[in-house]
Structure formats: C-alpha cells, structure tokens
C-alpha cells in the first residue's frame, strides 16, 4: 500500500463527506417536504434549496469520477454488484431533479401535488439506497476469485444494510430540518422546529440501533481502533456533536445546531472509512476483499490526479463560497424561483 493510494482513500472520504453534508441537507429537505402545508410553504421548502441542490449533487458526480479513476476495480465491482439498486438510485436522482424543475411550472393543483410526492419520495429513496450501499460495504458482500459479485439481488437487503439505510434517511431528515429552520421564518419556521425535534429523536434511536448491530454483523469494523486508538477521539467528538444539536436547538441557536449536524455527518463518514480501511469492498466469502492496494490505479495516474485535485480544490471552494454567499439569508420567492 503506497502513500498515494492512502491519499486517494482519504480524498474519496473527503468528497464523500462533502457530498453527505451538502446534498444531505437538500435531500433531507426533500424527505420532509410533504409535511409542509399548502402551495406557498411547499414552494418555500423547495426554494430554500433551489439554487444549491444542483451544485451539491456535483460532489456525487466528482466522487464517482474519482472512485472510477483512483480505484477502478472497486468502482466496477460495487456498481455491477448493486446493479438494480444503483439503477433505482439513478431514477430517483432524475425524478428529483425534474420534480424540482417542473413542479411550479403549472398552476394546476394535481400537477403540483404529483411533483411534491415525487420529490419527497425520490429524495427518500436516494438516501435509503446510499445507506443500504454503505451497510453492505461495511458488512461485506459475496465476491468470487476475480473480485466479481457472486451474490443475488436479495443478498443486498439484509437486516444490517436496511438498518443503515433507515439511519441514513433519519440523519438526512434531521440535517435538512435544521437547514430549513435556518432558511425560514414565521409560522412555517415554528412548525419546522417540531420537525427538528422529532427527526432528531428518530435519528438518535436509529443511531443507537446501528451501533448495537455493527458488532453483530460486522465485527471487523472495529479492527482499526486497535491499531489507532487515537480514533476514539473522533468517536468522542461525534458524541459531543450529537449532544450539542438538541442543546443548540433548545437555546435557540440553529446555526450551532447546523454546524453540529455537519460535524456529526463528517464524523460518521470518518467512522465509515475506519470500518472499511484498508478494504474498499469487503468480501463475505473466502475470496480476498478488494483493498486500497489491489483496487488502485497506477502510481502515475494517482499522482496525476493529485495534481488535478490540488489545482481544482481551491477553485471549487471559491465557486461554492460565492454561491452560498450570494444566496445567504432567508428564502424569498421571486420571479425566478421554482
């Protein structure tokens, strides 16, 4: 295992964390969308993420491209193993995009309700599939000697992956609720406060359940903590971040709550990486797992892409910063809104 291979494992982790934090809140807003009442409220929830969701999704595209480039074996195995779930994920991403885009284009009530349901459902399915994928990655999938998937469709929907899937939906809902609280005001905001509390407790319960099931279904997930006991610090910080969410909500400081939920998601992605490393696809059979070393591209490519990332990262930060700055503050409906 070379330094460059580890670097790319870390970069993928950063991209995944960036994606989970950023698209996480707009997916979460989607999950909660149907709780908004009436056309005005629903337009407000959609437009709270209106200018941002598209840019957030680019993190996924870049994550996919980086995985393809840095670890093509893992990219090929994971996507072909999870064929139908990935196809459903892609449909949901399409469904979400067009729901946002088309919903407010006609005044008809049936039209708008249809797209509201489609938006909310597709958002939930996207997060669910990501969670199921993460659960499978941690627990392991059956591989053959050529690192091809050797299981069937139903093998992907075990208890553990489904639990992680539900946990992911709850996390996104909580994260989205806090974001929405920041973006709204008045009556809607008062009700979003209720969503925040409820989704937080669902999140907490599923967090506990997932943590409890992990030693049962994926005992190897804790191996790395023996090598690097310092990683427990991240666990401790994670607990503090989670605890700070209700505290900040209670004290009426939603910005802190949002920062805490961002930190929580970042810590969860870190723990996900800890559970995997040095594997990328854990094998549940006798065949070897795909590891950071065995799945990687050549050193030349990894180095080349490290340069590309070094040039690109500051640019990406700048664009993201500009957009979030221009669209800061409470959501307002204007002529250009969805």
């Amino acid at each position, binding site marked *: 295992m070379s330094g460059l291979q580890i670097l790319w494992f870390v970069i993928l982790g950063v991209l995944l964390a960036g994606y989970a934090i950023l698209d996480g809140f707009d997916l979460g807003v989607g999950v909660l969308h149907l709780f908004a009442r009436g056309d005005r409220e629903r337009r407000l929830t959609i437009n709270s993420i209106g200018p941002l969701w598209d840019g957030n999704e680019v993190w996924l595209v*870049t994550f*996919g491209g980086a995985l393809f480039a840095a670890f093509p074996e893992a990219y090929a195995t994971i996507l072909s193993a999870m064929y139908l779930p990935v196809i459903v994920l892609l449909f949901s991403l399409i469904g979400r995009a*067009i729901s946002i885009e088309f919903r407010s284009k006609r005044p008809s009530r049936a039209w708008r309700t249809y797209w509201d349901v489609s938006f909310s459902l597709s958002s939930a399915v996207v997060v669910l599939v990501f969670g199921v994928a993460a659960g499978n990655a941690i627990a392991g999938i059956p591989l053959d000697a050529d690192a091809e998937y050797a299981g069937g469709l139903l093998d992907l929907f075990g208890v553990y992956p489904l639990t992680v899937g539900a946990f992911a939906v709850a996390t996104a809902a909580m994260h989205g609720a806090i974001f929405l609280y920041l973006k709204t005001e008045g009556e809607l905001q008062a009700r979003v406060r209720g969503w925040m509390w409820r989704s937080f407790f669902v999140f907490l319960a599923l967090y506990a359940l997932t943590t409890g099931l992990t030693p049962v279904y994926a005992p190897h997930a804790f191996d790395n903590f023996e090598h690097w006991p310092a990683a427990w610090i991240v666990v401790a910080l994670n607990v503090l971040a989670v605890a700070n969410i209700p505290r900040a909500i209670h004290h009426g400081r939603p910005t802190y709550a949002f920062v805490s939920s961002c930190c929580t998601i970042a810590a969860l992605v870190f723990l996900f990486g800890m559970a995997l490393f040095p594997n990328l696809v854990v094998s549940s059979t006798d065949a070897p797992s795909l590891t950071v070393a065995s799945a990687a591209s050549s050193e030349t490519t990894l180095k080349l892409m490290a340069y590309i990332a070094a040039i690109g990262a500051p640019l990406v930060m700048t664009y993201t910063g500009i957009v979030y700055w221009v669209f800061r503050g409470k959501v307002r409906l204007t002529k*250009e809104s969805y």
Partner: protein
Amino acid sequence: MELDVVLLSRLQFALTVMVHYLFPPLSIGLGAQMVMTEAIYLRTGDRRWESLARFWTRLFAVNFAVGVATGIVMEFEFGTNWATYSRFVGDVFGSALASEGIFAFFLESGFLAVLVFGWDRVGKRMHFFATLMVFLGSVFSSVWIVIANSWMHTPTGFHIVERGGGPRAEIVDFWAMVFNPSSMHRLGHVLLGAFILGAFFTMSICAFYVLRDRHQELARRGFKLGLAFAAVSSLLMLVSGHSQAVALAHNQPAKLAAFEGHFHTGEGATDLYVMGWPDEASETVSFGVAMPGMLSFLVYGDDTPVAGLDQTPPEDRPPVLVPFVTYHVMVGLGMGFIGLTLLGLFLWWRGQLFERRWLLWVFVGAVILPYVANQAGWVATEVGRQPWIVYGLLRTSDAVSRSVPGEQVLGSIALFSFIYLALMALWVFVMNEKIKHGPDEPPAEEAGPKGERGSLLDAASGLAEPSRGLMSEDEP
C-alpha cells in the same frame, strides 16, 4: 431463453446516451447565444437585449437540469453495465472523467445558480461573468468527455499491464492521452455541432414570434444574432468535417470505409457516394450516386486509392449500413445548414429577411434538423468503431459486467424507456409553455427611442396573451 447481455447493454447505453445528448449540445449552443446577447446588452445598455437574455436563461435552466439528471446516469453506467471495460480503462479514462467533475461541473453548477436566480441579486457585470462561466463550464465539460471518448477511438499515451484480473491500460503520458490523434478534431466538431443547434433553436423561437407578430423588436434582434452565428458555425463545420475525414482515413480506415460504403479497395481513384443504400451481404451499394474519384481527391488530393473494408480482417470490420446512412444524413444536413443560413444572410442583406414568411416557417421547423445531425454523427462514429469498444484493444463483446444477469438489464431498459419518454414529453411541454409565455417586454419608457411605440407593442403582446397577467402570479 438466454438473454444476450452484450446486446441489451449496448441497447441500454445507446438509449441513455442518445437521450442524454439531446440536452448538452443545447446547453452549450444556447449558452453561446446567452453570452453574446448579454454582452451586447452590457455594451449598448439596450434593455431589449436584457429581456431576451433573461428569456433564454429560463429555457436554459430547464434544459440544463434535464441534462444533468440524464448525465449522472452515464457516469455510473460504465460501472453498472460495463464493469470489465471500467477495469480495463479506469486508469486512463478516470482522470478525464474526474477532471470533468472538478473543472467543469463545479464551475457550471455553481454559477448556474447566479445565472438563473441572481438577476436581481448581483450586478450586471457579475451576472455576465456568471453567464460566461456557465458557458465555459459546459465547454470544459465537452472537452473532457470528448477527450475520453476520442481515446477510445485512437488510444495513445498508455501501455498494457497484465494484472490478476486481466490486462488493463495504464497511462504513461497524460498529454499524449489528452491530445490523442482524434481528440482536437472531434472536439471542434462537437462544439460546432452544439453552436449550430443553439443558433437554430433561438432562430426557431424568434421566427415564430415574428410570424405571430409578438415581441417583434426582441425577436428580430434575436433572429439576426442566431442567423449570423449559425452561418459562421456552419461554414466552419465544413472545414472541421473535412479535416476529420482526412484524419479518419489515417486513424480508423475501416470506419471511413464503412461511412462511405467502400467495400473493395480497387485500383485508381476512389469514388464518393453522395447517396445510396449499402448491402453488406453482397458488398455493393444500391441506388448509389457517386462522384468519380472524389473520395481520393478529398483525402489525398490526388488519385491514390482509399483503403476499402477488404483491407480489414472480417472479424474486425464494423457494420456498414448504419454508419453509412447516419453519416450521409449528417453530411447532407450540414450542407443544408450552409445553404439555409447563406440564403438567410442574402435576404438580410437585401433587407427582405422578415418578409419571406415561408422562409421563417422553414426556420421554425428547422430546429429539428441539428438535433438529427448531432445524433446521426454520434451514431455513425460509435457504430463505426465496432466491434471494438477501445479501438484495437478491447472488444465490445468482452467489456460487459460479468455479474449482471440479462433479466436485470432488460428490466432497467424497460424502466429507462418509460422514464425517458416521460422526461422528453415533459421537456417539450414545459419548454412550449415557456415559449408561449415569451420574454417579458422591457419597461416601455426604455424600450425604444419613442415611448409610444414600445407601449403599443406592449399592449399588443398583452392582448395576444390574455392569460399572462394571471400566470405571472404562479409562474416563477
């Protein structure tokens, strides 16, 4: 019955990529129109150009969103359906795809928000900058994707390494990969194709308004801008197409032979079929109209024979019918664009452009043609590469995912067909609504030199759209 996974996966890829490619060329081409429209507004301060730019932006936003949604599918489909291919090319192909994400998509989607939602939030100059960045982003995107695709046609800058799971291509020279023999020719071709599409799109809408006597002031300006740009792009396309064919004779002779229905090399100068219907079984072209010696003249400038399909081993030959037909459709339409736009320019020069109603109607409908030409060109080049997925290195039949059962691919094709049909219907419907709604006229006192004229026009367009006042409440 055993399902043919290779055939199904090819069908699915063809379906998803062809539907996807309805949208990006319009994003690029309409983006170019928006940059020019807004630049003219900045220079002249004429609010009519601003109205037009805002209108194009609204259409652009819908098109862009659908393009992104269908594009994400493409990125993951390499892994879902073509896992063996992904393992083989990841080392080379991946860096181009990752560059696209980092350099193009972030730029595009970031500034898209400012472009669409930022009209009243940022200054004029900042907004123009955002438009420019979105356009550049879409161009960068095409740069990286065309480079990656061109590498599949003319691979360079790599070596083959044997590994546990099989051989794979590893990069040795990044710039040789980027500037592979076909990438720059093809990039120019793709961009010009998009520019022509964007210009015909704006011309179609503007011609419609002129014919219906709506938004005359805006529509005439928009039409002329589109016409000038389409004429220049169409003429440049002639140069680009020619340089591509010459390069093709050198890089992929079998593909050129398939395009031209050129089965037997023969002696002396090779003829060029202007039209015809090739028959692969008998290796002849029926109903062929040929220009004697023209192909040799175009490729070599003399009467050197051009290599026919007989120079390629039978197992490595591409099919002929589909590449031949699509290639000829594309070339024919390209010539048509030159003819149509030059006619338009001539009438503009004579001051009769907007008096020939039949010609305006032709322009209303002509927007379909660049779509057909873009699609036909891609079908020709991709089918012409067969039986290879990476030319000379990996066969398409060896490239599919081994672990995916045919039933699942069949199921996903059914789902894709259903969703994409609905998607295209929605796209047409929403675009149509937006076009019927039309641009918002600029405030009367600033519209023209005389306020009276502007307000009359406003009144006229208001009458033409009785629902407009009501719609603006709901219509974003």
